[in-house]
């Protein structure tokens, strides 16, 4: 049996496990599944943006916005669980497409900085509007109807499975080719009849909605939110570490990476728990290591061990190592 035909049953079993754990797992596993599912969605969301050449350094903006929309719609409007999640998705979608339109043609550094500014800016707003958000002291969820822990955990698993399916569908659509073209050369892709702004807005909306949804579910799970939690740099960091560690621009990379990141975080917490900050130190080193030595992540590393060429990531354009590159004129 080839690896390819094996892949679908394997993924199906994984999805099933993820969906069954909230109901039948021990508390430790339920918690583990919840955190993994949450990070899978964030990682897929980050990876979707990266696939379009957009590096987000402010994924916590979406996460935090979703969290606040979730908690505020429940507390102020009495929205039930599912409705507050719809609200979170809409808010994330709007923020995503708004950022895409603001940044326009700019990518790379400018885009990264804009997302960073958006996240920090939202944090300041959340701190400065205490009447609405509870300010720096934070706010507790006071929902009229509480769906139950099982429903919330199950919702996160469902969202994770749905995110995987969406990512798979995107990879099968025209977006896939548009991404490649956009990463390689935006101007050229425009000439090929691919309209980057249209694709970029769509992908930012999709990706932003996903990340905000996670924030929405998390706030029901935790029951509390303050600006430091909502717009925590930690969210930004884990959502980028996971796809990079797993294999950027690939389908399975963010999933593998999310599992590995949760594992790595827990392992350092257990091993070096007395050292505050150890897990983020490890993440920082992992980031540096991956960029320098494992550009295709775990996925690429595994494929190489199996003696295969990493499919998509390998096709990335690499700059030629000339002596001193200037404007190369052939």
């Amino acid at each position, binding site marked *: 049996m080839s690896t390819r035909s094996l892949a679908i049953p394997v993924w199906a079993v994984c999805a099933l496990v993820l969906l069954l754990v909230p109901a039948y797992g021990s508390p430790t596993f339920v918690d583990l599944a919840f955190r993994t599912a949450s990070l899978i969605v964030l990682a897929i969301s980050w990876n979707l943006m990266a696939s379009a050449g957009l590096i987000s350094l402010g994924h916590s903006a979406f996460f935090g916005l979703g969290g606040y929309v979730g908690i505020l719609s429940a507390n102020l409007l009495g929205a039930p669980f599912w409705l507050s999640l719809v609200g979170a998705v809409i808010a994330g979608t709007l923020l995503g497409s708004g950022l895409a339109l603001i940044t326009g043609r700019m990518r790379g550094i400018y885009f990264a900085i804009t997302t960073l500014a958006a996240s920090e800016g939202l944090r300041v707003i959340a701190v400065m509007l205490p009447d609405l958000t509870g300010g720096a002291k934070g706010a507790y969820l006071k929902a009229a109807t509480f769906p139950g822990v099982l429903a919330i955990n199950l919702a996160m698993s469902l969202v994770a499975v749905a995110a995987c399916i969406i990512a798979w569908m995107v990879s099968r659509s025209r977006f896939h080719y548009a991404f490649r073209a956009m990463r390689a050369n935006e101007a050229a892709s425009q000439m090929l009849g691919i309209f980057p702004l249209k694709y970029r807005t769509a992908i930012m909306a999709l990706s932003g909605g996903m990340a905000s949804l996670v924030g929405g579910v998390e706030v029901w799970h935790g029951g509390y939110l303050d600006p430091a939690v909502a717009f925590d740099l930690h969210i930004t960091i884990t959502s980028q570490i996971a796809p990079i560690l797993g294999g950027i621009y690939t389908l399975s990379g963010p999933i593998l990476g999310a599992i590995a990141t949760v594992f790595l975080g827990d392992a350092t917490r257990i091993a070096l728990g007395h050292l505050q900050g150890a897990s983020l130190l490890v993440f920082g080193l992992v980031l540096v290591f991956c960029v320098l030595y494992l550009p295709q992540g775990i996925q690429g590393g595994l494929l190489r061990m199996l003696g295969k060429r990493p499919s998509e990531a390998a096709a990335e354009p690499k700059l*030629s190592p*000339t*002596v*001193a590159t*200037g404007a*190369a*004129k*052939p």
Partner: protein
Amino acid sequence: MTALLELANLRVGYGQSVVLQDVSLELHQGEIVCLLGANGAGKTTTTRAVSGLLAPWSGEIRFAGENIASIPAHKRVELGICLSPEGRQVFPNFSVHENLLLGSYSKKARQRRAEMFDEVYGLFPRLAERRTQKAGLMSGGEQQMLAIGRALMGCPRLLMLDEPSLGLAPKIILDVYEAVATIAKRGLSILFVEQNVQAALLVAHRGYVLANGQIAAAGTSAELQNSTLVQEAFLGKKPSLLATDGARGHSAAVPAI
């Protein structure tokens, strides 16, 4: 006597695509040699390879008898290889004087700075008049003079000029070539790239014709002037043979003379 510059079976390209297939040429002390060829034939690539901006894939670049193919570009300036690059590439936010100061950045040139300033400002009085002007605000002709002057400031043993007439008015081209001729009279060795064949052959002692990344013809200026190949290629009589660059990268059957 060994040549000052000698290229042996040079093969260079960008990324995956080869530009120079197999180029061999030589230039002796005090000689003025021009490289002719259509757009995309590999003239600029040759100067970039000699100056070290591009690393050769194979073959040798010998300067004063020594293979310099693996010496980094900035050290070749120290050896005395100075290029006035295609498109002039002056530093637009620097004054004329600062551009020339940069031209004499290398240790050897720094010691002879005052002397070279006199020489360059003498050669191009226009630059002396505008020494505090920002280079980016000058005309194309003035920028070209600055680019040549800047290369001269490096005290070259071999001066390379890449398309000094590009985009200039005919009268300015004349000025520029007059200066080149003056420099040449002082015994400096010059390798220059030109599309303007008539002007080039007027100044040069010898020339090479590049086509599809190979030397298609070589000879003295007079020989090239009369060569049917050059006439066909550049005087528009039968442009099929040489004036294509679409076929670059594939071996084309070009007769070498």
